[in-house]
């Protein structure tokens, strides 16, 4: 790999042993993929916001960086809190080091936005920006919807990038890997973007999907991409005429697609839990990735003047939850029995440490993948199960 003089000095330890190791990590990471140089990043986003007590390595390394006085060199945001207030067992066992972890992140200089939806407000990239991001749902949104460039970086690799301000140039940073891989034709009457994302991820794994034109809004793009990156390893998708690198089919494929698949209404419907299962759900869970204010308005209006038939949880971007508090809808949702949270639903619910399995219904393709006992339903299914729609 060709390094600049400054990079070479850092690798030789001129800026201390911690930065030497951080840079060595990036060099070895890049070498595995044939990267020829390290390039500067505009911003970073960290995924590792939970102090998960069974894991130690990541937290030890952060402690080491903080002890050495290392700080991030680019604007850096962070994923949601785990919801340590959710239950006593969580507070005592699974996330007991959470407060220490958050203090360490602050010492590193991380912006305390505590949201996976950083790209809407706290950390908004421009088209073409090179980023050192982690969080699969944020990576896929930044690449696909904004046209910025980041690989799917891991926990701690994101930290090494933020403290050096560099990332190895390979994968989705290069033009040739951003071209269309597979054309996805749609035969759908009732669009369900999260279910579509789940199926595309499952079928295409890590190829670059190009969806036929459909006028998805940004909430749909967020939820669809997150599902693709959970059920698959998709880091970039295109929608013809919607996303910036796919003005036309010809432009994104350099000609004809090599492969085409079709996703039908029947495929989407097959992902939905059967009606008896939907009605037996003890909880209806919204917001993975966290709901934006637009999304709270769209889903929340169904609850106004009604009472939820079972526990209903909204997980909202913290800054948007603060804004919601200034609106009448906030009180109306609480009156309807909706629980409003600013943490991560996956962390908040997965370590409930209860001996029995609870059934949940969710319109999030990502949560359905990760959370045991979370069955999938469309937005309408979820509203029906919540008892606010016929």
């Amino acid at each position, binding site marked *: 790999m060709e390094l600049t003089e400054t990079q070479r000095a850092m690798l030789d330890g001129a800026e201390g042993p911690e930065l030497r190791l951080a840079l060595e990590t990036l060099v070895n990471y890049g070498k595995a*993929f044939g990267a020829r140089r390290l390039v500067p990043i505009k911003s970073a986003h960290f995924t*590792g916001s939970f102090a998960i007590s069974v894991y130690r390595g990541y937290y030890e*390394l952060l402690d080491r960086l903080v002890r050495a006085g290392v700080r991030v060199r680019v604007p850096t945001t962070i994923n949601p809190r785990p919801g340590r207030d959710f239950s006593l067992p969580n507070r005592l066992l699974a996330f007991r080091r959470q407060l220490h972890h958050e203090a360490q992140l602050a010492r590193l200089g991380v912006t305390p936005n505590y949201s996976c939806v950083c790209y809407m407000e706290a950390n908004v990239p421009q088209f073409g920006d090179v980023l050192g991001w982690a969080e699969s749902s944020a990576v896929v949104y930044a690449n696909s919807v904004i046209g910025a460039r980041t690989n799917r970086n*891991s926990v*701690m690799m994101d930290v090494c990038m933020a403290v050096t301000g560099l990332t190895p140039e390979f994968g989705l940073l290069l033009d040739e890997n951003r071209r269309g891989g597979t054309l996805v034709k749609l035969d759908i009457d009732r669009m369900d973007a999260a279910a579509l994302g789940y199926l595309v991820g499952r079928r295409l794994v890590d190829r670059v999907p190009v969806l036929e034109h459909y006028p998805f809004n940004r909430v749909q793009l967020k939820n669809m991409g997150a599902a693709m990156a959970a059920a698959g*390893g998709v880091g970039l998708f295109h929608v013809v005429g919607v996303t910036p690198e796919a003005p036309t089919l010809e432009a994104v494929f350099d000609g004809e697609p090599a492969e085409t698949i079709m996703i039908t209404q029947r495929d989407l419907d097959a992902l939905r839990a059967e009606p008896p299962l939907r009605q037996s759900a003890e909880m209806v869970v919204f917001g993975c990735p966290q709901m934006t204010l637009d999304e709270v308005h769209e889903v929340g209006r169904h609850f106004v003047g009604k009472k939820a038939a079972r526990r209903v949880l909204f997980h909202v971007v913290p800054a948007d939850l603060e804004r919601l508090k200034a609106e009448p809808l906030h009180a109306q949702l609480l009156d309807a029995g909706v629980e409003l949270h600013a943490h991560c639903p996956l962390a908040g619910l997965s370590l409930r440490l209860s001996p029995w399995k609870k059934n949940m219904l969710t319109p999030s393709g990502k949560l359905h993948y990760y959370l045991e006992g979370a069955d999938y339903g469309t937005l309408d299914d979820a509203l029906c199960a919540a008892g606010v729609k016929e």
Partner: protein
Amino acid sequence: MMQFQGRTVLSGRGRGPALFTDQAVNFTAAFTKAGNLLPWKRGQFHDRHHPWFGEQVRGKVLVFPACIGSTHTGLVILDLVRMEEGPAALIVDRADSLLVSGIVLSAVWYGPSITVVEYSTAELREAVLAGQLLDVDGDTGIITF
């Protein structure tokens, strides 16, 4: 004895019984469940969406097409590798950034590492039986059984 010439992604050497799947692996979904809180179950696979559900991966050569899912993958792999409680070696069709990250982090900051070699996993599944001993030489890329 049979040999296959793969492509080295991360060097090293590993030997162990083969565990095969034709499904991509989500390491975060597999190893961050309540069951993994028990130290002796740290290497047990807990993803219900995957045919490896319930399998112990420690000391095995994992043969799978690709790595999918969350960017917490490195958190999981870093600890499995640095505590030497993870797989002996990995063989994949296509190595991805997350899979490589956890191993590189362990190698640079702690020392322990495992090898990753790219080879057609469909072809290996045809030729090798599950549980057979595989030797993966990540310096040459040669897989032997």
